């Protein structure tokens, strides 16, 4: 369990925030917001970005007739333009007790990644929704927009504390019922839910928008270094297992963990979720600036 929270240390420093202003979250699909924003929308609108033509019907605005085509073909076509809308980015941060455990500090690492992605989204004009969950969903701070909200986002993330046990499914189901349509949903979690994660991930399926999964594991979870006979107590439900750290047991754990991660990838693939596996021994800025860019999730 991580005991230190680096109290006083800001989650993101100014240099990183400056670099965030030059980045943007890249959606594989066009998302829709309520306001005209800086993101293209599937809805054909009134922006200057040409999208398509259609046949003229009575009542169409004659200003949108394509006279060039009429000159060549003597047929009336209406020019369609893509409507530029603002994008909703929902940051779903797992604040269960399991996130506050492990070495290096998984909770701080998760908040830093979340803060970084939120800051990038805000800097690029997206509307950011921060939602915290443990046993249930806790919407925090409403929606934020504009670079001025970055500081607020950071304050919110610094103030939030780990809560109860993990209940992915009810939390994400609650989120799904109130999520803005076609939003970019970024789930930051360790997926450590005894009830499983498949049904929960289905709730943030990328069918309507786009979803990312930042799967955070601590280094001590990825490569346990304990030795001897230990009693491992679950931080969330107080259950325990007695483990003798033999090479055979460690090998078995690695196999189970690899299978777990592979299962996560398969489920994400099934529900069109972009999985990103992160371990806490990799600095968050390296995660954001290198891993996500290499995965073409940042641009």
């Amino acid at each position, binding site marked *: 369990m991580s005991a230190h929270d680096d109290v006083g240390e800001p989650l993101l420093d100014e240099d990183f925030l400056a670099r965030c202003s030059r980045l943007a979250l890249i959606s594989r699909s066009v998302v829709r917001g309520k306001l005209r924003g800086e993101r293209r929308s599937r809805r054909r609108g009134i922006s200057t970005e040409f999208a398509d033509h259609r046949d003229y019907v009575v009542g169409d605005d004659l200003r949108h007739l394509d006279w060039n085509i009429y000159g060549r073909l003597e047929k009336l076509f209406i020019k369609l333009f893509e409507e530029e809308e603002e994008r909703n980015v929902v940051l779903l941060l797992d604040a269960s007790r399991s996130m506050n*455990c492990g070495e290096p500090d998984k909770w701080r690492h998760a908040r830093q990644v979340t803060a970084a992605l939120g800051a990038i989204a805000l800097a690029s004009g997206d509307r950011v929704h921060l939602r915290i969950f443990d046993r249930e969903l806790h919407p925090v701070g409403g929606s934020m927009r504009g670079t001025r909200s970055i500081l607020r986002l950071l304050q919110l993330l610094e103030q939030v504390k780990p809560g109860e046990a993990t209940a992915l499914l009810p939390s994400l189901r609650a989120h799904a019922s109130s999520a803005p349509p076609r939003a970019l949903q970024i789930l930051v979690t360790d997926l450590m839910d005894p009830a499983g994660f498949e049904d929960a991930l289905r709730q943030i399926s990328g069918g309507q928008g786009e979803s990312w999964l930042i799967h955070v594991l601590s280094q001590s979870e990825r490569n346990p270094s304990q030795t001897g*006979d230990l009693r491992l107590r679950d*931080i969330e439900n107080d259950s325990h297992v007695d483990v003798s750290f*033999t090479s055979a047991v460690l090998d078995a754990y690695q196999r189970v963990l690899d299978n777990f991660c592979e299962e996560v990838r398969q489920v994400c693939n099934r529900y069109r979720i972009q999985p990103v596996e992160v371990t806490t021994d990799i600095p968050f800025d390296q995660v954001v600036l290198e891993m996500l860019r290499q995965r073409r999730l940042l641009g």
Partner: protein
Amino acid sequence: MSWIAPAMLWFLLLVPAVLLLWFLKIRRTETIVPSTVLWSRALQDERVRSPFQRLIRNLVLLLQLLAVILAVLALARPEFGSTRYSSRLNLILLDASASMNSIERDGKKRFEEARARALKIIDDISGERAVLIRFATRAETLTPVTSDLNLLSDAVRQQQPSSGLTAFPQALELALSIARQDSIVPAQVEEEDTTGEEALAPQIDARIFIVTDGVLPRWDGDPIPVPVIVEPVGEESSNSGIVTLAARREFSDEGDLRVVVEVRNSGDDPIAGELELLLDGQAAQSTERRTLEGGERWTRSFALKGSGSHQLEARWKPEGGDALSLDDRAWLVAAAPRPIRIARVGAPNVLLDDALAVIPSVEVEFIEDPAELDPETAADEFDVVVWDRVVPDALPLGTGHLVFGARPIQFWPDEVPLVEQPRLVSWRRDDPALRYCELGPIDGTVIATRPLPPMPGTTMLAECREGALIARFVADDLRGIVVAFDVLDSPWPLSPSFPFFIDAALRDLARIGGGIESGLHSGELIEVVAGPGVTEARLVNPTLEKETEVPVLPGGVLRIPADDELGIHRMQWRRADQDQGVWLDRWIPVNLLSPLESSIEPRPSIGLAGAEAVSGSQNWSQGRRHLWIWFLATALLVMLVEWIVFHRR
């Protein structure tokens, strides 16, 4: 399998202790983890993939328990052989002969080491049966067959070395007799299987321990069917002592004494000393000094005046003393010789009567008619009856008979053919009757005689081809010598050997000798025939400090074993027909006088004929098939395996 220290099995209570420690040991350090879900799966996966992991984990416990059990079993000192070896009989023979009195270089008696060695054996045979046999002049069992170690140990502690000889063969026979009585008869097998086959011999489950310095007579008996383990004791080998003290009366009326003393250095180094001869406590001769080289025997002869009863003592005084003092003194009693009472039966015979007349210290009664001799009282009145050319059909009992020119039909019932001038083939020069005789005068000079054939109870002393010219006969309470020819038919009476023969024959038949008591060895029976009417008898020791009551046997026979005190003992008795204040007595010298015992050099091996003796304490214990060392080695091996398994998990 049997256990030497079964009390150690209580340590098996360590097994539950180990189990308790095992469960206490696995009190685990608690560590908080984000979730136990993956760990639960991992453990399940590990159990599925490595079903033996649990076994291996428990294997550590099993190995620990096994190591504890083996170590406890080793402490209990198991012996292989189960009931067979728990019933084994150990015959412990303890040498208590005179040589065991030798003083070793550490100042202790050799017997003390023997006693300690015997106690060690008893300690090592815990759980088995044993019997303790002490042997010196006699062999005797000191305990019954028992597995009571305390009884055996107490018996050993009470033993002291004797001054006697070594009755080793008797001790071995006694041990073998006990072993055979204790032997196990094989189980009966089906009758048809044994048809035509020899019955199985009894199985003797025994072994013999001999605690000795090896100064033993050789065993020439049957092969010994059980293991013999010799525990040698002693180191000192330098000793000198008197090995012979003998005397005889000179052939004279004065009865002068000729005394012979032999001193022997049985060690390897020269020993100087003085020899002194005392007659009735006074120096009889001047002290003689002599240095004896290693192994040298020195024989010294003394001529002493005195026809009465005397006590003789020889003393050898080695410079600085020696390891064994028992053989430095020896005693002899020269009693005043009693005249031999003789009845000369038969017609007058000048030559024979003249010969009898020159024999010193004889009283002769002449009886011409044999019927005048009362056979009932002959034994009381005469020591020897001399029959000349006449002999009754039944010789009187209890007295000696010297027969000339007649044939006792009790021994030679058949008529014997006449032989003229028989040639002498041989004669027994070692027989007491012929010791100083030269029989050349009768070789082919006897005119005619009837040589006696060999018959049961007879011994041929001088024989020709046809039979014996002189023969000895012995039967119950009947003894005699027959000269088959008439001395008047030979020139023998004219030869000096004739009176020598008569003198020796009379003294032999009269059983009087020259009055010289050469003595007994410690432990041998003192026997005095005091005659009828003895009411009380006792044995007084040489220092006159101890009196031992002696039982009076029928016929006035007094019999008691000589104890370990060397010197001149006195057998005293009272008769009913005498004043009760008067004790009659007889001196009995008790000596060591043994070249074997004086040669105290320890011998690591002993002569056992065909039997094989395991020599030394370093070997016999290996035959006990101790298993504790294997249990301990296995326990250590198990601990090593446990360590490896524990660290390879």
